[in-house]
């Protein structure tokens, strides 16, 4: 499985889908992101790791403007993120996001959760949207739960639904913010398996995670963040075997015991 996921590595197209240049962000006085430069190629898969509070979530949340940056530029699929709300909405339709706590809509059934975006944002007819929803539910192996409400599902199932919900919008990029860290250990694998499938199909992915096994087998690049900066980035093999910076070494020694 892992071999297949990495097999596509060589075929990275070299047109960028995300370009972040000289980006800074402050929360009040607190300089949370400092001079971020990052280019993501189409079909590229990046794992972001780093200590708690280092700004990982903030970084990927800037990419779909859940957080606003104050300096520098972020261009997603040719659209620069500014205050223009139309542009922001356009970027959001192209960028899927999966949250730590799933954030499914509890008042809607699973299939309604999935169909909501396509119906209202992409203006897809309801019937067609529900068919697409069922297709993706099959894909994350949860179709039999379609008529249930999120509250009736386990954490792992909810997270798979959340991934399927994003996929229904046919996004060009998927962002994952610690998708498995709110899950009980026995459910982590079912979610990672879905993500590995997605990787195999060539989805562009930015994943904040501490699942180093996933990083090794799926990522093209691993970024290490600390104190709001990208301290180091490298291929998974190099990153884990020969970390350059002391902070990276310290971090790795703490999470890989």
């Amino acid at each position, binding site marked *: 499985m892992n071999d297949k996921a990495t097999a596509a590595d060589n075929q990275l197209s070299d047109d960028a889908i995300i370009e972040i240049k000289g980006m800074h962000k402050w929360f009040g006085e607190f300089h949370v992101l400092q001079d971020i430069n990052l280019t993501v190629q189409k079909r590229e898969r990046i794992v972001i790791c780093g200590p708690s509070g280092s700004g990982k979530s903030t970084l990927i949340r800037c990419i779909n403007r*859940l957080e606003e940056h104050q300096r520098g530029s972020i261009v997603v699929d040719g659209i620069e993120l500014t205050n223009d709300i139309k542009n922001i909405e356009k970027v959001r339709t192209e960028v899927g*996001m999966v*949250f730590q*706590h799933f954030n499914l809509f509890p*008042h809607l059934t699973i299939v309604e959760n999935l169909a909501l975006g396509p119906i209202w*944002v992409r203006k897809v007819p309801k019937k067609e949207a529900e068919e697409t929803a069922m297709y993706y539910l099959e894909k994350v192996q949860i179709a039999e739960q379609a008529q249930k409400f999120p*509250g009736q599902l386990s954490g792992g199932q909810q997270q798979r639904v959340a991934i399927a919900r994003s996929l229904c919008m046919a996004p060009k990029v998927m962002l994952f913010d610690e998708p498995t860290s709110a899950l009980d250990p026995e459910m982590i694998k079912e979610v990672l398996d879905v993500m590995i499938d997605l990787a195999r199909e060539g989805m562009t992915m930015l994943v904040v995670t501490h699942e180093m096994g996933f990083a090794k087998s799926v990522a093209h690049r691993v970024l290490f963040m600390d104190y709001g900066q990208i301290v180091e980035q490298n291929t998974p093999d190099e990153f884990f075997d020969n970390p350059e910076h002391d902070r990276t070494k310290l971090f790795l020694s703490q999470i890989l015991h």
Partner: protein
Amino acid sequence: MDNTTTIDAKSSVKPPVSSVGVVGWARANLFNSWFNSILTLLTLLLLWKVIPPFVNWAFIDSLWWSTSAECKAAEGACWSIIPAKYRYILFGLYPYDSQWRPFLAIIILIGLLFYSRNRAHWKKSLAYAWLVGLILMGLLLRGGILGLASVESTLWGGLPLTLLLSVFGLTAAYPLGVLLALGRQSEMPAIKSICIIYIEMIRGVPLITLLFMSSIVFPLFLPEGVSINAILRAQVAIIMFTAAYIAEVVRGGLQGMATGQFEAAESLGLNYYQTMRLVILPQALKIVIPPTVSQLISALKDTSLVVIIALYDLLKTTQTTLSDPDWMGFSSEAYIFVALIYFACCYFMSSYSRRLEEELDTGL
């Protein structure tokens, strides 16, 4: 090895008698300490002193179909005031011969309300049914076409007036309150401050003051010769007042929403209105059903304050009935009667809301 046999899923051992049944219940709830035992006995004594005399008065010594003279001689309740006077209590000054019209209007309204109780009926056709129903009710009350004699709105009174003020008041106040709550959360400073000022000003003033203002102050600002119907003015005051309270209740619901819900909706590309309408409000409004219904119930009862601007609502027509020399002194009976009508309306709302809550419960 022995241990495994002691765990028997179908144990036949029964709980001790004293902890089940009536005796067990009474022991656990009424006599579980000497203090509670004394309270229980005192309560029983009080009930013994109050209930039998009331039953005597209301049902045994009471008169139901007598004249007022017979009533005055009797010991018990004189319910006869209701058959004798119900037309006036229910319809006030509305011309006697035309009172079938407001009666029919009420029947239409009750029919629509009961039909709307079932959420399966919430379709577009229901909205049209309400529209047609409301127009029909208006025409019935007003007359002036199809050979119906025209009846001035100053003669409208009693139950139709109370229901009119309540139903219109609540259905208009609710969406307005939701808008005000959203406005108060808005990031646009102008909208936000207008909503805050509105809500705080209205909440700082008793409804009576608003009603006075609508009937005395407001007309001063109208150009000469223009006058607005008194009922309409009272209606507007009730809507404005109720909306401010609903707004605060709804704001509580909005604040209770997890930010993750906003973020999930936004990250799908939904815009502000879609996020609110499809994701946030359905959840927030559901959370606040109980306090919202409390507000609506108290608004319904507050419609009785319109007497102070000389409208003849249900309570006022009852009062007026009691000034009839024949029937003076039977106020308890008449007030119990209107209390039951109010109770029926309020109970309808609260039972409906309980049902709605159950239906909307999705286990999270």
